[in-house]
């Protein structure tokens, strides 16, 4: 694939983030850094029981405590809400039942944090304990005592999809693998704990500063629960200390602060402890995948069958979307004609799971890529060759109605194949050392919003006045991924000005138009395209005025290097300041607007559940992992990961590399270390000391390779870069472990215990059937 020619001044050049100085000086403000005079401090009372009827709540003693200014319970905020229109099953404070340890019961605002904490101790709640459901496969069999009366058998949602003829496909297979895969629950663990400052204004409005990656959801939900028009609420996003999906759904702290501020008629700030962050998390659910894949002798996948069970926790949240993604994204990566998918989102008495980087796809991709490696081995084919033989012929529409417009996966595969020196290493390294590979992909934004409408998914406004500064108003949420910088680059490129002339104002609902938020990797594609459209609109106005003055047609003009001139006559024409002054003569202050709406053709099929999975474009990733496994201790050291990612075009290579490396890092953590450990609905490791995320010590060397397939509809060809690489890392490591010591671990995280057990089992079975040990089989000494 040839790279698109790059004649751009700013696009495609590495650029430090526009807010970098605010961050490195420590002067930039995150939600908890903000305070206002008279501010109260809020704390939340959580349920100590996983499932209990609330007989009564007595707040009288707490109210009598000096310094307590307001106490709110479910009676003060009765409106149920949820991120999906089909899942409005949460109240900010439970009224009838507590459904998980940590469920929200009441909240106190007081003059100090200490007083608020004392007040929580004085609230008397009379609970009646109810039968509990923790294991999703047991919970979905429940005959009674359901967590929500209106959700029989604790099944939040189930979907059954068939594409092509899977039965026939399996008949045509020469090799069939069938396995159960298990993925433990993992969490975002963004370094910034959630914080919200809600300010009751003298005019009866509410101003909310919150650590949110989707200000629009917060805005909408705060209005519903506070029973105020959206126009009376102003949501402002300060700097956000990481999101990864954990700040996308409205989190109870945000609404609690609003409800308290409204009741107290005061500013109220609430800050989660790290333990509260773990319980509120909405991360990646425990996922059980029963997978069956057929392969013929030619290495072609003939059929896929996946039964996916997700442990969603006690409320709906994003659940149906998460489970639908796990099925939909079986498509759009390889050419698979015959597919059967049965997906179950199950309710349990545990905290709610939700969207986490690679939403819905990661655990199923682990299972699929591990199984493909296994089948390749059985068919005596190179795993890379098997992938080559199952590529899509893009552009195309997949069996499950996903439209693929650009497809850099073949180049990603070849790049890691070369760079890793795969041919010299695969199957040829000494016992204990191994190399593995896997692929993954992800959406560049959802083509269908959670609330179906035909409205644009984003709008960007722009103004230029006599100072000739360009002010961009965007609702797109910068959460550390570099979206502010990306938008500045695009506007500067199109207007032909230097980036320091652009002032970007983001996420202040009184000023900026609505954007659907930073989720599903949608911002570059959608806000990027809206920026192009707004800047082109602005440039037309300037060109029209300049053309009149120069006596030429507007299409004879170009804007670059802070000048507007006739094409090819850079020295002539005028400076950008002069051009703006000329245009102001005609128009007054210049304003322009641009929007983005995914095209109709990108919005997927018509079957039930077809709304999730379709995207205007998909990113692709191929990765190799090299590992060293100590067969005596089961310890795995990942030496190096090479990740090639097709992001369409890297608008800012610096931040694209950062996104690829960050994704790989998070996949590495899930592959080997991260696991939320539950016991009777309580989290056993609710701290960063016990829930281990990788440090500099064990993190592998990560080499990122940018592949640019140039999407026909992406802004300058760009697609997503922030999520698609995560999912490949886990199976690449699992496959490398197999290459190193000859055992397949179908359960993540892959702990030393699991490896040792598998090595012992393998040794037993090898001795049992008297077969001679293959190259990778451990000798007795090695396994012990």
């Amino acid at each position, binding site marked *: 694939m040839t790279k698109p020619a790059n004649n751009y001044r700013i696009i495609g050049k590495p650029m*430090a*983030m526009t*807010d*970098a*100085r*605010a*961050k*490195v*000086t*420590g*002067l*930039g*403000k*995150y939600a*908890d*850094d903000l305070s206002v005079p008279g501010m109260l401090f809020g704390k939340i009372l959580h349920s100590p029981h996983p499932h209990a009827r609330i007989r009564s709540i007595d707040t009288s003693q707490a109210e009598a405590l000096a310094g307590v200014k307001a106490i709110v319970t479910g009676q003060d905020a009765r409106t149920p809400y949820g991120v999906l229109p089909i899942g409005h099953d949460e109240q900010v404070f439970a009224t009838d039942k507590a459904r998980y340890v940590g469920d929200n019961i009441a909240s106190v605002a007081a003059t100090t944090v200490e007083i608020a904490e004392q007040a929580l101790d004085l609230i008397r709640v009379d609970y009646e304990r109810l039968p509990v459901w923790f294991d999703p496969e047991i919970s979905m069999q429940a005959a009674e005592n359901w967590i929500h009366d209106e959700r029989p058998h604790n099944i939040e949602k189930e979907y059954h999809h068939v594409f092509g003829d899977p039965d026939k496909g399996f008949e045509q297979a020469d090799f069939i693998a069938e396995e159960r895969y298990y993925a433990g629950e993992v969490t*975002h*663990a*963004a*370094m*910034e*704990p959630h914080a919200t400052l809600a300010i009751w204004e003298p005019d009866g409005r509410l101003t909310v500063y919150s650590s949110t990656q989707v200000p629009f959801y917060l805005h909408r939900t705060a209005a519903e629960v506070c029973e105020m028009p959206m126009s009376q609420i102003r949501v402002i996003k300060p*700097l*956000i*200390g*990481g*999101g*990864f999906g954990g700040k996308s759904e409205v989190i109870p702290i945000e609404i609690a602060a609003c409800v308290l501020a409204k009741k107290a008629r005061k500013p109220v700030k609430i800050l989660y*402890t*790290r*333990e509260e962050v773990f319980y509120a998390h909405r991360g990646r659910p425990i996922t059980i995948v029963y997978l069956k894949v057929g392969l013929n002798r030619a290495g072609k996948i003939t059929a896929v069958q996946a039964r996916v069970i997700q442990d969603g926790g006690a409320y709906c949240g994003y659940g149906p979307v998460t489970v639908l993604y796990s099925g939909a994204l079986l498509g759009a990566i390889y050419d698979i004609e015959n597919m059967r998918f049965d997906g179950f989102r199950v309710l349990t008495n545990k905290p709610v799971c939700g969207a986490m980087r690679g939403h819905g796809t990661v655990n199923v991709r682990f299972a699929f890529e591990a199984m493909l490696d296994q089948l390749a081995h059985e068919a005596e084919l190179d795993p890379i060759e098997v992938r080559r033989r199952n590529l899509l012929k893009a552009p195309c529409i997949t069996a499950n109605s996903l439209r693929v417009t650009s497809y850099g996966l073949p180049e990603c595969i070849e790049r890691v194949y070369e760079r890793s020196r795969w041919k010299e290493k695969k199957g040829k390294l000494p016992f204990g050392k191994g190399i593995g590979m896997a692929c993954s992909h992800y959406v560049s934004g959802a083509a269908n919003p959670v609330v179906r409408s035909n409205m644009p998914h984003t709008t960007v406004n722009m103004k230029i006045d006599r100072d000739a500064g360009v002010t961009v108003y965007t609702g797109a949420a910068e*959460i*550390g*991924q*570099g979206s502010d910088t990306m938008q500045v680059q695009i506007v500067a490129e199109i207007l032909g000005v230097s980036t320091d002339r652009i002032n970007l104002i983001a996420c202040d609902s009184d000023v900026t138009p609505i954007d659907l938020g930073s989720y599903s990797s949608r911002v570059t594609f959608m806000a990027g395209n809206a920026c192009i459209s707004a800047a082109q609109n602005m440039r037309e106005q300037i060109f029209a005025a300049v053309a009149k003055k120069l006596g030429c047609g507007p299409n004879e003009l170009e804007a670059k290097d802070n000048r507007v001139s006739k094409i090819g006559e850079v020295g002539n024409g005028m400076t950008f300041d002069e051009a703006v002054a000329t245009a102001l003569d005609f128009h007054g202050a210049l304003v322009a607007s641009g929007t983005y709406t995914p095209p109709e053709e990108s919005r997927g099929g018509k079957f039930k559940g077809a709304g999730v999975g379709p995207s205007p474009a998909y990113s692709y990733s191929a990765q190799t992992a090299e590992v060293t496994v100590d067969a005596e201790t089961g310890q795995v050291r990942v030496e190096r990961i090479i990740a090639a990612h097709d992001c369409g075009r890297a608008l800012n290579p*610096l*931040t694209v*590399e*950062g996104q690829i*490396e*960050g*994704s*790989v*890092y*998070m996949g590495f953590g899930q592959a080997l270390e991260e696991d939320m450990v539950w016991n009777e609905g309580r989290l056993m490791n609710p*701290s*960063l*000391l016990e829930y281990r*995320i990788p*440090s*500099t*010590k064990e*993190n592998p*060397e*990560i080499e*990122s390779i940018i592949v640019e397939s140039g999407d026909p509809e992406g802004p300058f060809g760009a697609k997503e870069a922030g999520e698609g690489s995560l999912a490949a890392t886990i199976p690449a490591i699992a496959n490398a472990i197999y290459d190193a010591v000859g055992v397949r671990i179908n359960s993540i995280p892959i702990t030393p215990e699991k490896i040792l057990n598998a090595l012992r089992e393998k040794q037993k079975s090898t001795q049992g059937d008297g077969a001679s040990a293959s190259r990778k089989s451990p000798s007795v000494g090695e396994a012990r």
Partner: protein
Amino acid sequence: MNKELIRLRVNGEEREIAVAPNRLLLEALREDLGLTGSKRGCDDSSCGCCAVLVGGTPMLSCVALAASYQGCEITTVEGLGGSGELDPIQEGFAESGGAQCGFCTPGFMIAAKALLDRNPNPSMDEIREALSGNLCRCTGYMQIFEAVRYAIEKMRHKSGAAVRAD
């Protein structure tokens, strides 16, 4: 708990504040002195976001009692660099993508500062070791290592000192 007056020397300035004996140094910095650059990311000394230099040694201010640090030379992220000038470490983190969300960045820069002050030419293993008390969830650390190498180069350029090849 009764408050008492204490004097803290932060970023070269003597400051007097009234704090309860259980006031954490992090709280004193953020809430009493308005220095919000040091962050609270955990509650148990596991993340490193609150790191400050005490006499040149990185310390976690979330597990330090403010009253115990009277008479010490405390440097926070706000004290790195000069007036309007960025320290080479700050410049490195900005230019190399070492700060994505930026929340862990102050702690990492403090750890890097302590390292480079005592060893201006660390090996890659020494960099990994020195930064291992800090967690970052965004970068995968590669661009943080880049940032430190940027600072090393910049400082070497400034001092003209000889550096061993690594």
